[in-house]
């Protein structure tokens, strides 16, 4: 009964979001305020209904109600509780419901925090949100209904794919979707602006917090997914340029560009048309990512199961929204007046360079991802585009951007002085070179490019601090004055510095692991030793164990440094009983920012076992850097100016709007 209530709530939600999309649109056309006022209420109701529906599905998982086909296919009564709950979105139907839940959650946020928006803008934004919600609610109800019952109900479920039975699944998809779907708000704002045919700095002010929030979540989601793949798959890799990873990385690149171009628009009223286009493109990339992952065009661990009708349906959604948005853009972009002029060498110029490089990089990754699909569709020829393609193109494109990042905040708006900025960055360049020289001295050997990369990483960190340093006047004024000035710097200055420092930290991690990791594949018998990263691993033997829904064989290793035992590592292979599926559970030990990574291979006839041992120097920097970037986004989001500014602008705008009618 409760399951049917959940199903019914979803149908009601479809009706509600349809109302949310149609009535306010009619309201803005007829200038009927009561129709426009429907939007916020409908958005809240839609959110509550989908939330109820989602809770019902979660409940079915918690009590292991195998009369629900979706629960039967993806759960098992012996599964630990946390995986029962995270299993709700560990399958196609449930994960689409989560997508919808987050979409209507953002609509509800817009209606709650959007009280200071001009009435017409808010109605239009919510109407577009409603339209997207309608499409996805229809998609779920027609092709991916999680509430279908089985009769008679099976006694036991088929269990969740073992790779997904991990805390990573509990965190990664919700974060990723908060990012992916968060960009829908930027998209809706862009469409609303095009419908109105007007756009100004205040628009950028409203859009920026949403972009920042979505971007921060997406950053965290991608980093989390990368760490999950790293420790769960047992291959020791942290990024595979897998199409599904690319599908989340392309919106991130576009979103990063949007974040910066919205800044130019907010401060200088320039790049208006470009920013609107970028807002459309960013969410389009999110939709494309959803299509690639969910349609079964690509199959991988993310694709669960495939069904052609779903692919066609999502493709239709994709064509409707991207095609519609771009057509509207083509018709209306000319009516948006271009603003503010600036010299090529200026803060605006630097941000344009940022946008040029980031969008080119996004296009490159998109090309590499789609080319095999397009070629196969057109010629039937099958090719694979692997990591070498992406490393070469993406790496080379990023190089000038990384070098330019510290310059940006040091250049003045309108007309900057690149030489003055360069002079201020002398110290940062010195820091980079000194650290790199130190690494050469301590480590020696290895490719020259790697030291260059590490120098760039430290240069970026020092260069980002230079901006704060200069603005606080440290060394120029008295210490207490400098301290007070430093504290008083706007949140966005700290946010910028943090985000840029984060990139530097990630670069250091990526370079260190790529250039200096060591890998040994050896056949080991108890008592044998292998050396990695200055640590001596001794293989002690194997042990059999039994988990709640799997059996495992674990190898025990003692780790010693200089003859003294420091720690031990368990590494195991599991066999999940319900699906007869083996997995590798790598043994990982952290030393500072570096890790020892041990994964087991096949047992040999003579009693030995193949063991793969990696030393991963500074690898944690990759994800710590991403967390720092995310923190930068959060700090920027808390900037008081973002919150105080908007209402003032809104009050100023209202009379203008009414007069225009």
């Amino acid at each position, binding site marked *: 009964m409760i399951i049917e209530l959940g199903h019914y709530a979803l149908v009601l939600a479809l009706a509600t979001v349809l109302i949310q999309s149609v009535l306010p649109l009619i309201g803005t056309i007829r200038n009927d305020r009561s129709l426009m006022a429907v939007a916020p209420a409908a958005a809240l109701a839609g959110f509550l209904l989908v939330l109820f529906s989602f809770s019902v599905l979660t409940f079915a998982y918690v009590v292991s109600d195998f009369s629900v086909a979706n629960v039967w296919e993806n759960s098992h009564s012996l599964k630990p509780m946390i995986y029962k709950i995270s299993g709700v979105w560990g399958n196609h139907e449930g994960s689409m419901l989560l997508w919808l839940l987050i979409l209507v959650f953002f609509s509800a946020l817009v209606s709650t925090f959007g009280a200071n928006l001009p009435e017409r803008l808010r109605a239009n934004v919510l109407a577009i949100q409603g339209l997207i919600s309608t499409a996805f609610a229809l998609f779920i109800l027609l092709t991916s209904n999680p509430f279908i019952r089985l009769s008679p109900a099976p006694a036991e479920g088929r269990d969740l*794919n*073992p*790779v997904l039975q991990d805390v990573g699944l509990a965190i990664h998809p919700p974060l990723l979707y908060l990012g992916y779907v968060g960009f829908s708000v930027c998209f809706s704002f862009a469409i609303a602006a095009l419908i109105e045919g007007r756009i100004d700095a205040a628009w950028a002010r409203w859009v920026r917090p949403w972009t920042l929030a979505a971007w921060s979540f997406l950053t965290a989601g991608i980093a989390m997914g990368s760490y999950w*793949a790293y420790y769960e*798959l*047992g291959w020791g890799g942290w990024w*595979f340029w*897998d199409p*599904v990873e690319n599908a989340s990385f392309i919106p991130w690149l576009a979103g990063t560009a949007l974040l910066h171009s919205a800044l130019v628009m907010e401060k200088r009223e320039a790049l208006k048309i470009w920013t609107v286009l970028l807002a459309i493109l960013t969410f389009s990339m999110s939709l494309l990512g959803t299509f690639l992952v969910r349609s079964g065009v*690509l*199959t*991988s*661990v*993310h*694709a669960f*199961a495939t069904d052609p009708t779903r692919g066609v349906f999502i493709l239709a959604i994709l064509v409707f929204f991207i095609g519609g948005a771009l057509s509207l853009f083509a018709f209306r972009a000319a009516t948006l007046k271009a603003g503010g*002029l600036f*010299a*090529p060498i200026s803060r605006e*110029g630097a941000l*344009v360079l940022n946008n*040029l*490089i980031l969008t*080119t990089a996004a*296009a*490159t990754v998109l*090309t*590499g991802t789609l*080319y095999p699909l397009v070629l196969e569709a057109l010629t*039937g*020829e*099958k*090719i*694979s*585009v*692997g990591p*070498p*393609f992406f490393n*070469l*193109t993406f790496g*080379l*494109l990023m190089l000038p951007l990384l070098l330019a990042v510290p310059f940006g905040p040091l250049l003045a708006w309108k007309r900057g002085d690149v030489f003055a900025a360069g002079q201020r960055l002398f110290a940062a360049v010195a820091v980079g070179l000194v650290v790199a020289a130190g690494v050469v001295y301590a480590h020696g050997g290895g490719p020259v490019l790697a030291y260059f990369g590490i120098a760039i990483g430290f240069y970026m960190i020092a260069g980002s601090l230079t901006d704060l340093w200069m603005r606080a006047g440290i060394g120029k004024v008295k210490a207490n004055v400098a301290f007070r000035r430093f504290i008083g710097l706007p949140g966005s200055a700290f946010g910028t510095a943090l985000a840029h420092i984060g990139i530097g930290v990630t670069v250091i991690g990526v370079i260190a692991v790529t250039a200096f990791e060591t890998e040994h*594949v*050896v*056949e080991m018998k108890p008592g044998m030793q292998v050396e990695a990263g200055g640590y001596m691993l001794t293989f002690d033997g194997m042990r059999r164990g039994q988990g709640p829904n799997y059996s495992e064989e674990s190898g025990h290793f003692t780790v010693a440094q200089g003859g003294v035992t420091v720690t031990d590592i368990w590494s195991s*292979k599991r066999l999940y009983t319900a*699906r007869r*599926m*083996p*997995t*590798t559970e790598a043994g990982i030990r952290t030393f500072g920012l570096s890790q020892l990574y041990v*994964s087991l*291979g*096949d047992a*040999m*006839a003579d009693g030995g076992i*193949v063991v*793969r041992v990696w030393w991963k120097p500074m690898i944690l920097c990759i994800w710590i850097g991403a967390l720092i970037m995310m923190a930068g986004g959060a700090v920027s989001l808390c900037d008081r100016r973002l919150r105080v500014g908007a209402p003032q602008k809104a009050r100023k705008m209202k009379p203008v709007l009414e007069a225009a009618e």
Partner: protein
Amino acid sequence: MTRKQKRLAVIGGGVAFLVAAVLLVMFAFSQSIAYFYVPGDLAKANLAPGTRIRLGGLVEAGTVKRGEGSTVTFTVTDTLSTVPVTYTGILPDLFREGQGVVAEGAFGTDGLFVADTVLAKHDETYMPKDVADRLKAQGVELSGKETIK
């Protein structure tokens, strides 16, 4: 510089950057694309030794042999022709005799296929549809839907 010249410089710079990016993409494509073959295609493909390809098919039952250390040899078959493969490293969890596999690597001058990456199937990425269809037509059972990326 006049305003017009400035604008030209900016646009020229941007276009030059884009052209460079396109050339870079084309160069990278020419360097790193691997074509997909099943054993039956190889006779007419006439590959030069050292050309990177992806070889797909089933692991023929009874052919997996472990050599020195972690070196493994096995035979990939599309049920009509076969190709022997050597690989050094740890095989994926889902690698089994009689099941789908994709080996990425190249033929040496001695005609032996040396793989540096082995992916065990369970989906179309590693078992492209027409191979699966062809195998199915010959009565080969493809089981399992689970995948490791």
